[in-house]
């Protein structure tokens, strides 16, 4: 077990103070790593809260360049960064906030050629992609490597969160065995505070999985409805004929 320095004990004293969290959970975080793909409106806040909590190492994966319409939610980016690649901007923001963080930022999304390497170097994956193909790819790889995946997605004012724990829980393919033909990655609105809320919840869930603190959403789908401010929890089940986990 790693030890906490005087600086770390001071920096994290307010969370160490939480009953049941303590120095033990903080030491576990210091020994932990996570992949966040991607780092836009959802993954950006996820990465930031993990960095703030004292995780040892983050791996980011996000391709493409910043556009003006990203700036209502992608809070790791810079206002003067439009037209520039996103991964280095996220890297810079996180390093400035937490210089102690070990960080590796890939300038591309998770794809078949890199997914094994991305997942293989971390303890846990936070799936924050806006694309079902990428999500299902990460799901299958996490299942293959036996890595937990915190699965977060949103649409308009609604957000979903669950934790996939191979081999115990349903996997993403159990609930999304096919992608409907009407689904459009840009076919819904986004108010930045909604993926921001979900990002904070995703980080909280990841911290709990990594430290063993509290109850996690294994086999449970949390649905946040930002329109009427309700949180609902639903029990989800495995698909008996699932090609990934069945």
């Amino acid at each position, binding site marked *: 077990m790693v030890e906490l320095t005087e600086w770390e004990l001071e920096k994290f004293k307010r969370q160490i103070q939480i009953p049941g969290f303590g120095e033990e959970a903080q030491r576990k975080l210091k020994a932990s790593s996570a992949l966040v793909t*991607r780092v836009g409106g959802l993954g950006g806040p996820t990465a930031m809260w993990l960095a703030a909590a004292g995780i040892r190492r983050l791996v980011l994966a996000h391709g493409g360049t910043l556009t003006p319409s990203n700036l209502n939610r992608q809070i790791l980016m810079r206002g003067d960064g439009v037209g520039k690649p996103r991964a280095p901007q996220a890297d810079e923001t996180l390093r400035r906030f937490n210089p102690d963080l070990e960080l590796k930022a890939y300038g591309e999304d998770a794809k078949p050629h890199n997914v094994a390497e991305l997942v293989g170097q971390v303890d846990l994956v936070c799936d924050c992609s806006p694309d079902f193909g990428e999500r299902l790819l990460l799901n299958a790889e996490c299942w293959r490597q036996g890595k937990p995946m915190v699965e977060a997605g949103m649409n308009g004012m609604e957000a979903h969160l669950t934790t996939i724990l191979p081999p115990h829980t349903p996997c993403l393919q159990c609930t999304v065995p*096919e992608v409907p033909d009407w689904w459009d990655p840009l076919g819904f609105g986004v108010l930045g505070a909604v993926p921001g809320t979900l990002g904070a919840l995703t980080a909280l869930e990841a911290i709990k999985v990594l430290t063993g603190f509290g109850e996690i959403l294994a086999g449970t789908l949390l649905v946040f409805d930002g329109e009427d401010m309700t949180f609902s929890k639903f029990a989800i089940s495995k698909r008996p004929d699932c090609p990934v986990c069945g």
Partner: protein
Amino acid sequence: MVKVKLFANLREAANGQRVVECAVEEPVSTTELLRKLADQYGEKAQKLLFDKGGGVWQSIVIMRNGEMVRDREAKTIGPGDEIAVLLPVAGG
């Protein structure tokens, strides 16, 4: 009568209603319930819930009183039940 909570694009198809009521006098299957919803809210709801072959999209998740209903044909939904119809979401 059953209360049905709608999410995402389905809420939009139902004129922005978060919760709707469906007339159910005796137990129905989830497919039958979704057919009623599609009849109630028209073509947009029909397209969101049913594929071109007339089957319910497999990625539509139906919750009955907080539990996922896997069997689409069993008559598991009765008067007084609370149903949630969840569409797949992938926004980041």
